[in-house]
């Protein structure tokens, strides 16, 4: 038996007895960042493939969500800073080894880019729209002209953004649950899937929804595959890793994770999508709602549970 106690009365706010430095704002941001990454990725992808006409909701309408998601996400991040007035220090340097530095710079580019993207479709969304100033009209013309190269840039940045939401956590070796490189691809896949869910919710075109639903089904299967691999890695790992996995395999996050993330957030919507593709009637809003909800819960569970895991000595 071994028992360790603080005998000097240590009780640091947000750190003792359990680390809780990052709050709901971070989880919400990780969800919104992934969502925006997913939406922007598919908008860019279908422009590059020259399917702008067939995929209207994907290319034109859904990207409207992205700037809002990014700005709300950034406000949440800002909210959770403790030294807020110094936030500009992020942009005085580039720290190659810090994922947060990568993320800060990526967001600095992709947020205005998403706004420009939406603005360049304003005239299509609202016939008769006028930018009032000549310079804005000229800028719009220019953006429309370079839309394809722009799409390539946006696709690249959206992948970095999606991966970054996972890498942000996995860079901390002090938190064994987070410290697995599989979080990068896992959060990217989850982000792409939630992005698709949002697009499918908006789309009225049966054809478009079917095409997206097919991709989403594959993404959900990839996500489940990655989650299984994550647990395999944990269970084959050192003591701190098996302890981290135990939080989900009988520990306090078991029900939240398996019921809300795996069953309601992934397996059930995947089944519904498969049924829909086979011709059964499924309410159009149901699978997207479940996927978005599952994605949100997944971020919360990972942020909360990860902070409980630690090295014991």
């Amino acid at each position: 038996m071994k028992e360790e106690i603080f005998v000097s009365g240590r009780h640091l706010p947000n750190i003792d007895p359990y680390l809780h430095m990052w709050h709901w704002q971070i989880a919400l941001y990780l969800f919104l960042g992934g969502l925006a990454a997913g939406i922007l990725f598919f908008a860019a992808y279908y422009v590059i493939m020259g399917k702008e006409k067939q995929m209207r909701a994907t290319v034109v309408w859904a990207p409207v969500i992205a700037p809002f998601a990014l700005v709300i996400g950034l406000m949440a991040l800002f909210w959770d800073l403790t030294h807020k007035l110094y936030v500009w220090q992020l942009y005085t340097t580039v720290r190659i080894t810090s994922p947060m530095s990568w993320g800060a710079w990526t967001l600095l580019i992709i947020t205005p880019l998403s706004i420009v993207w939406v603005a360049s479709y304003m005239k299509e969304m609202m016939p008769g729209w006028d930018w009032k100033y000549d310079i804005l009209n000229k800028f719009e013309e220019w953006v429309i002209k370079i839309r394809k190269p722009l799409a390539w840039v946006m696709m690249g940045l959206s992948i970095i953004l999606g991966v970054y939401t996972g890498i942000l956590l996995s860079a901390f070796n002090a938190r064994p649950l987070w410290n697995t490189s599989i979080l990068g691809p896992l959060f990217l896949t989850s982000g792409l899937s939630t992005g698709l869910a949002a697009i499918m919710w908006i789309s009225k075109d049966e054809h478009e929804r079917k095409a997206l639903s097919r991709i989403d089904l594959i993404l959900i299967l990839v996500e489940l595959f990655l989650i299984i691999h994550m647990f395999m890695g944990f269970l084959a790992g050192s003591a701190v890793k098996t302890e981290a996995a135990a939080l989900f395999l009988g520990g306090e996050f078991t029900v939240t994770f398996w019921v809300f993330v795996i069953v309601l957030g992934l397996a059930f919507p995947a089944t519904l999508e498969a049924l829909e593709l086979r011709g059964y009637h499924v309410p159009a809003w149901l699978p997207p709602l479940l996927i978005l909800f599952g994605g949100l819960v997944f971020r919360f569970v990972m942020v909360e549970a990860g902070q409980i895991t630690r090295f014991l000595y």
Partner: protein
Amino acid sequence: MRYAMAIDTAKCVGCGDCVVACQTENNVPHGYCRDWIVESVSGSYPSVQIEIRSERCNHCDNAPCVRCCPTGASHIVEGGIVMVTHEECIGCGACIESCPYDARYAHPDGYVDKCTFCKHRVDKGQDPACVEVCPTHCLHFGDLDDPNSDVSKALKNRDWKVLAPEAGTKPQLYFLT
């Protein structure tokens, strides 16, 4: 030059003088601490082992807090001391999340704070405040590269361990067992 500290767990009685000295020396706000004492009890009666450790920032050679800092506020100065520049810190909490020893905290003024090995004293040739006041002389501070320093001599003939070496941080607090 490589500053380090050796803590004699056989001599430490857990009086807490080091904690109070640090709080006074460094104006640590009420309710916070840069060092603390852990009492580790293992075994069961009648064969019980007790180990008392005065812990603080490990000033790691491979410091994850420095690696994760997005602004460069967390940095390593000469002698391997890990420092935080308050005016560069945004309070994102990445360093706090990355520390396996939970040695950092967010100061009520917003920036992240922690043990500095009392750099302001060390620069003047003095020992850190905690070392200076320890009534049992169980804390040894100095330059590991100097074989005649207090810490080098303390480590020479004793068994020691570091905390969570498997975290790969190469910590520089040595606990004499």
